[in-house]
């Protein structure tokens, strides 16, 4: 078993490596060569590929939110504000966070396993030996694609969540359509929308950099690939939840 000092040193070195990878992925956007075709291909894989799970997550979250809220609101005779509650919850918190967690589960693991397999079969070394920078060719396109696509996936999730909430409000609770949508729309301010849409930009960056970091630091053959995949999902999910608290605090602080 490693000594506490050695373990601390290893963790510090890992944090430093992650920081360097993340910083390079941003700097590479402004340096040649740029791999636009790779970024578009990744956007298709990450964005379009994640659409079904994002739609399903948004829909059922909106529906359950509507059901749960109705249960509480009806006790106080406040059922008409259900649209307001669903829209604020979905757009400010649940939309960005749940979409990011679903995309992290699907894509951070995908990136870690793909790059991890390339690492253990010496394909990453081969790429470097052939004169190509893996951080430019593999990391930056994934970071660009995830950050860009998560923004739009969150918008879709928010919208589908509102529709899910509406379906319950209209079909189960017997609410008027206009009342629901009016309440949902009127409740929103620019700050709510801004908060809901700035979060996926950070979360997308976290998902892709964490997935790529664990993939590129894989050691130990196929077993190592499995380990990296699990670690990438766990680390990305935890980081998303932690960073969410900080962003919310900062934005609420600046709003109030």
């Amino acid at each position, binding site marked *: 078993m490693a000594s506490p000092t050695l373990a601390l040193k290893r963790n510090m070195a890992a944090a430093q490596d992650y920081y360097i990878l993340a910083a390079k992925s941003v700097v590479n956007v402004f340096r040649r060569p740029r791999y636009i075709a790779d970024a578009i291909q990744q956007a298709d894989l990450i964005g379009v590929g994640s659409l079904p799970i994002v739609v399903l997550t948004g829909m059922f979250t909106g529906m359950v939110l509507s059901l749960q809220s109705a249960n509480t609101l009806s006790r106080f005779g406040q059922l008409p504000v259900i649209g307001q509650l669903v829209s604020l919850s979905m757009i400010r918190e649940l939309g960005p966070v749940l979409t990011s967690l679903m995309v992290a589960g699907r894509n951070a693991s995908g990136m870690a396993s793909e790059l991890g397999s390339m690492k253990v*079969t*010496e394909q990453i070394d*081969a790429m*470097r030996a*052939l004169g190509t*920078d893996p951080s430019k060719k593999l990391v930056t396109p994934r970071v660009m694609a995830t950050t860009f696509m998560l923004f739009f996936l969150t918008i879709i999730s928010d919208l589908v969540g509102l529709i899910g909430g509406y379906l319950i409000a209209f079909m189960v609770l017997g609410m008027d359509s206009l009342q629901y949508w009016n309440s949902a729309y009127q409740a929103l301010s620019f700050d709510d929308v801004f908060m809901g849409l700035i979060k996926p930009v950070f979360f997308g960056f976290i998902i892709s950099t964490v997935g790529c970091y664990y993939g590129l630091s894989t050691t130990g053959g196929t077993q190592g690939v499995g380990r990296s995949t699990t670690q990438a999902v766990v680390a990305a999910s935890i980081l998303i939840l932690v960073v969410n608290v900080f962003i919310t605090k900062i934005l609420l602080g600046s709003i109030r």
Partner: protein
Amino acid sequence: MDIPENLLTDTVHKAIIFEDVAISFEGNQVLNGISFELKRGETKILLGIAGAGKSTILKLCLGLIRPDRGHIYVLGHDVTAMTEEQLFDLRSKIGIVFQESALFDSLTVRDNVAFRLLEEKLPEQEIDQRVREALRFVELERTFNMFPSELSGGMRRRVGIARAIITQPEILLYDSPTGGLDPITSTTIIELIMKQRDVNKSTSLLVSHRLQDGFMLATHYYDAQTNHMQAIEGHIARDLHTTFLILKDGKVIFDATVAELGKVTDPYIREFLYLEPVS
């Protein structure tokens, strides 16, 4: 890339120079102050037991890993003092064939072999033509549109050679090119390396576990007329510029020609080469 001035070492006639190079992994000293030189046009065969640091030497040449101490000069550049960005430029002059081929499994054979040319954004027609030439050299033109998963181990190794030679690099590095292959396929691979050495006069560093590969390279030449290798008849009248380097415990214990290898008295080397002990 020009050769830098003010170098104390002769980097004009020597493609690779190792000076007192040491490296360890997690406390395990793999190389402990090794020094050797690879002249331009020379083929050096690296021998040693598993874990002796043979593949590490190849990775050090490319700057894929950094030594703990010492200097490595490749084509006049001290790779130990270069940044990763500068190394990408130098690596374009070096070709490497990896132990397990390391072909990109999501790309076709064409795109694998053309990887460097695609990065340089050459016209598609020129790329196709050069890929076909390289594949013809390794006699695998029919695999043009296939994926690596559709190829046998020997074919993958040959595609790896095609990928390494497509830009006619100044140095070729082979990491156990016959490892895990049957004897007939191994002979095919060695014949290709010999062809590259004798037809294109390349400078090579070859890591091998198989002694017979080294001896075959040192005692045969490629006959361009018959398209096959031929044994050198009688004594070594033809200089094949092929030498041997043997590693033991992180040190170089032998670095000379095959003729001198036969005369060696060191008991370890004699045992390693399956020679009778000197009485």
